[in-house]
């Protein structure tokens, strides 16, 4: 479903991703772990199509209508409508736009693109309500301004609520566990786990194993200086938790 081939990315003249290669098949969950500054978040922004990140060389291919297609020339919104979703590490606050208004606008944009009939207001509210239960958020939550004055935990729940509503084929969760207390982590982790299916794939970007206790990955990759230096299964996450990144990096060097 996703093929990253020899990807090189520069930001403000500094090379962040170096010859990165990664293949993700439909239904797989990949965890990307690594120390600060290793390029994990850059990867998430590049996949989502942030205009400030420039691909110098290499390619990103994504399966669209059963065909692998380069998405480098696609704007962020086109990629989103094709089913790529980024759960932000720091979700943006948008004053004056209510959560539900935004959900509806995004949902409609995706439906229109795929030629799916739009829901009326009442049906949409009920649809969202079923997703709210997944994340344990009430009606007042969706009437509030988009992320405005939300706590860190509420923002992260909101990202996953959006993911649940839009049901993307590829979800990239950028440090969704950061800033969450134990209870919120459990709710968010279990919520994401319920969205996992054979038809969609996920990339979990994290420093810690704790999120992976709830969402058990099929593969774990260690990032260092913009590339993958080691891959393994979930036991690699446990090893890192025990010995730290330094040991893996030392082995690599």
């Amino acid at each position: 479903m996703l093929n990253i081939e020899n990807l090189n990315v520069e930001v403000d003249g500094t090379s962040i991703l170096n010859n990165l290669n990664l293949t993700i098949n439909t239904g797989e969950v990949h965890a990307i772990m690594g120390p600060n500054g290793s390029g994990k978040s850059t990867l998430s922004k590049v996949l989502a199509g942030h205009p400030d990140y420039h691909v110098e060389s290499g390619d990103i291919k994504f399966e669209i209508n059963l065909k692998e297609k380069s998405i480098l020339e696609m704007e962020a919104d086109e990629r989103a409508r094709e089913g790529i979703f980024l759960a932000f590490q720091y979700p943006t606050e948008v004053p004056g736009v209510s959560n539900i208004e935004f959900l509806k606008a995004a949902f409609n944009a995706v439906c229109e693109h795929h030629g799916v009939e739009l829901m009326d207001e009442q049906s949409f509210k009920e649809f969202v309500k079923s997703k709210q239960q997944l994340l344990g958020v009430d009606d007042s939550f969706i009437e509030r301004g988009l992320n405005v004055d939300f706590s860190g935990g509420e923002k992260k729940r909101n990202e996953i609520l959006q993911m649940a509503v839009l049901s993307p084929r590829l979800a990239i969760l950028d440090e969704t566990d950061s800033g969450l207390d134990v209870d919120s982590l459990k709710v968010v982790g279990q919520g994401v786990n319920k969205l996992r299916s054979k038809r969609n794939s996920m990339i979990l970007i994290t420093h810690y194993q704790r999120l992976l206790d709830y969402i058990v990955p099929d593969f774990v990759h260690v990032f260092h200086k913009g590339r993958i230096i080691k891959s393994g299964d979930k036991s690699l996450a446990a090893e890192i938790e025990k010995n730290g990144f330094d040991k893996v990096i030392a082995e690599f060097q």
Partner: protein
Amino acid sequence: MSVDKLTNFDRAKTSFNGVVGGSSPWLSEYREKSYEDFKLLGFPTRKQEDWKYANFRDFKNTDFDYLSPGSATKAGSGLALLEGAATIVFDNGSFSQHQSNLAPIDGLVEICSLADYLADHEQSGKDLLSSSDAMTGNPMVSLNSAFLAQGVYVKVLADTKNAEINFVYNTSSGKQASSAFIRNIVDLGENSAVSICEHFTGQGDHYFSNTVTSYRLASDACLDHFRIESESSGGFQFSEQKFHLSERATLNSFVFNMGASWSRNNLSVNLIGPFAEANLNGVYLPCESQFVDHHTNIVHEVPDTKSSQLYKGILKDKSRAVFAGRIEVKPGAARTSAFQLNKNLMLSNDAEVDTTPQLQIDHSDVKCSHGATVGQLSAEEIFYLQSRGLRSNAAKQLLCKGYISDVFKPIQHVSILDYLNSSLVDFLGKGSAGA
């Protein structure tokens, strides 16, 4: 003193004098005096502080005629924005009996033409006019007085609740540039609650509409006031609203600008009774080469009065906007609370805004704050919305709607809110949503 200088309203004045006759001598004198004042003050120039940022372009050099009554091309009755309310229509500057509908306020409100009122109440009429000319030195108001003939006097009876009145100013001109002048006076009786919407609209290439309305709120009166400007792109517009608030009176004012090529709004509030309160909100949406200018003047004259102002603009293309908000706290006006905020969102690098707060505080025990911002849409916000599937233009439009939403929020009148929302959508849909 007489001034022999010609003005670009001499043709209008000659036509006007031909149309209007049989007034009382003092009224004729008042008009002539006002015209002399206008000549003395001269057409405003940017050298005057009060007009520093105004852009007069072809306005100043246009030779205006006086609009003959009853020639507006569009029916005024359909332009009332408060649904189901009484409607007072001015057709090319003249009160139109047959387009107006006063039935909904029958028994709640007394209404007559300003001329009749002045004829019956000569002394109080004189007092009224001199007090409503309080913002002296404004040539536009002098000009309005020089053409004083059309307008209504409205008295809302004490304890009247939920009366609603539309004022529709519908102006249109042919090839010759024309002008229309209206002066209204509205008295709100004690403990009355009224909604009034003044809607300025028109068709045609070259016209100037100049309207002055004075409101006097007796104690405990409450006024929801809307001033909606949707003139045609050939319209020049000056309007002034003056509010005097007695004790415990409340004014909720909302102003909106969208159409005129040139518009200037003066809004003055005098808080003359304790616990009087004025809440002023405004939205302006200029595009292309439009010029929109808001001057507010809030005077806290006595203790325990409150005022708040929130004006927001979204500017496109080469448009220009001015917000000059003045707050004055008189000596002795203890425990005054005054708040002012003006925010501007620039969708184009060629647009320009001049925002100038002006505070004159002559008492120490007061709470006053003011602020002004000028900014652009945030790239991170646009990306966030795009990352959920919204096209760039749709993302920008949603952000603009969000930007304005807190100013629209207090509005309770559904028909007005619908009008404003659809106007905003029209504005955002014109051309691209911006940079």
